[in-house]
């Protein structure tokens, strides 16, 4: 409640500056591709965690919200040649609205039904997209990167910076929520929803807020994706990898603190980028799944939890 915001804000500014600087110094495109994925997972994990870790409601349909962002971009690029900021806002808004709608239908029931609804939602969205020819259906759709872009040598570096800014935005939002009275209300809902309601917390309203913000974040993570991947089909847009990683990264990193999803995304994301070169992507995902189960059983408060426990024992 009392810490100064200055260190955090300075940190954000420094990282942004470093990012810009890097694009001027390093030419090897591979690093930008890899960093984009890790940054994307920071956004997805942080977004997931606002509803999952802070509020206690688990979204298993992250792939669906991500794909909403991606496919909204496809539609806007195809129809209007819309610029990146519009794509991001529209993708986020669409995903946020779907989150709000799902929440409105299910958040008055036991938390489990929200989770099941998100799982089923992702599958249904995939069905819709597969049947929608305008966005390519099952055949997929091509999105061509512009040859030139302001300030940057190429579009990939631009995408990297876009995702870096989105990641910083996501983390800053989570940090803001966490240290505010709204964040405390969400924690109260997670700890004991009945008691929270009895203590004056408008639980339904806060849950809908968290769902919308969370959905928005997952949508903005997906908005630049068609440009990143250039060929988008339902299999890649709704990939299994998003589903498990967005849940595993916060759970492994730590769900009660904004830094947890970041640690999880950086560690797991980087490891997977390195590993995909050497082992198959299926084995990759299997390991993530196993890590998820192990951490959930053995270290429920994640890596951050392991550190705070050690500190508490010393104190």
């Amino acid at each position, binding site marked *: 409640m009392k810490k100064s915001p200055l260190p955090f804000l300075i940190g954000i500014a420094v990282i942004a500056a470093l990012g810009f600087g890097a694009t001027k110094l390093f030419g090897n495109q591979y690093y930008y591709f890899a960093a984009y994925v890790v940054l994307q997972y920071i956004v997805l994990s942080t977004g997931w965690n606002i509803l*999952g870790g802070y509020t206690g409601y688990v979204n298993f349909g992250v792939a669906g919200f991500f794909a909403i962002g991606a496919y909204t971009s496809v539609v806007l690029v195809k129809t209007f040649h819309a610029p990146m900021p519009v794509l991001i806002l529209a993708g986020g808004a669409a995903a946020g609205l779907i989150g709000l709608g799902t929440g409105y239908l299910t958040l008055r029931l036991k938390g489990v039904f929200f989770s099941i609804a998100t*799982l089923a939602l992702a599958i249904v969205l995939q069905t819709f997209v597969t049947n929608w020819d305008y966005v390519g259906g099952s055949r997929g759709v091509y999105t061509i990167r512009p040859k030139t872009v302001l300030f940057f040598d190429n579009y990939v570096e631009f995408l990297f910076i876009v995702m870096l800014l989105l990641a910083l935005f996501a983390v800053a939002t989570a940090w803001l929520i966490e240290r505010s009275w709204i964040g405390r209300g969400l924690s109260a809902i997670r700890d004991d929803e009945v008691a929270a309601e009895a203590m004056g917390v408008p639980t339904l309203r806060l849950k809908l807020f968290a769902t919308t913000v969370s959905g928005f974040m997952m949508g903005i993570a997906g908005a630049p994706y068609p440009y990143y991947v250039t060929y988008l089909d339902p299999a890649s847009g709704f990939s299994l990898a998003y589903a498990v990683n967005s849940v595993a990264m916060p759970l492994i990193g730590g769900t009660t603190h904004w830094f947890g999803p970041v640690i999880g995304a950086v560690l797991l994301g980087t490891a997977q980028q390195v590993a995909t070169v050497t082992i198959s992507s299926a084995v990759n995902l299997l390991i993530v799944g196993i890590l998820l*189960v192990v951490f959930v059983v053995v270290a429920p408060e994640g890596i951050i939890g392991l550190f705070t426990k050690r500190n508490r024992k010393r104190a």
Partner: protein
Amino acid sequence: MSLDLLGNALVAGLLLGGFYAAVTVGITIAFGMLDIVNIAHPAFIMLGSFIAYFVNQAFGVDPIAIGVVFAPVFFVFGMVVYRIYYTAFERRGQESIRGLAFFFGVLFIGEVSLILTFGVDYRSVEAPYIGAGINLGPIGVPMRLFLPFVVSVVMLGLLQLFLGRTFFGRAIKAVSQDRLALQLMAANPARIKELAFGLSIGTASVAGSLLIIIGPVEPSIGRDYIGRVFAICVLGGMTSVPGTLIAAFIIGVAESFTSTFYGPSWSPAIAFGLLLLVLAVRPAGLLGR
């Protein structure tokens, strides 16, 4: 719209529905009666399907027989899974996020393990009745739908008898109906729940073998069943085996009609749509605290 088409769609829907009930009854027990959100249930079903495939291909054994023979193995496996779940989560009162994430992880590990072992191609079994059918006038009744239907109904009937007439069965019902009272009396229903969960997974062995008789399978189709299974369970009143059967018929017929008149790719959306509808109308048993 021809009457023949309608008739065939109806019959196919009912037969499919019977099978869906077999898939769902495991959830009716685990989720409806024991409040364990085992979203990994489809993974166990897929495991059953692939075991049936493997043994059938290697030894030529009838798939239904495989499913029944392996049911005790799945039963034990289910008890082990419950033990882990209980020790890690239920005992500490943390079923909500952690338990869900646990089962999600299991679902995921299941699917990916199957992909690694068997690949992503469609697999099917061979049996003399697959491909055969009988004709009741204009209605064709494929054996690959009819036999699973029969087996499903028999399995559900046996379960219903078990729950109503045996000691353990009634103990399971008691646990489901008076969870709170049992908790307040510090009685430990864990033993009963362990057996019940084992039973729930045991049904997956049979359901899996039926699934691969009905049609070819590949590891990811388990996910299509998640929405269906919970939709049927909720629609059927959560704790009732007959309710599960009726709800399964409804969803089976709805899917069959949609598939016949609009195309098969919309089937997963039907169950989900119905689930949302049911949740929106909100029967009292679902209200959150």
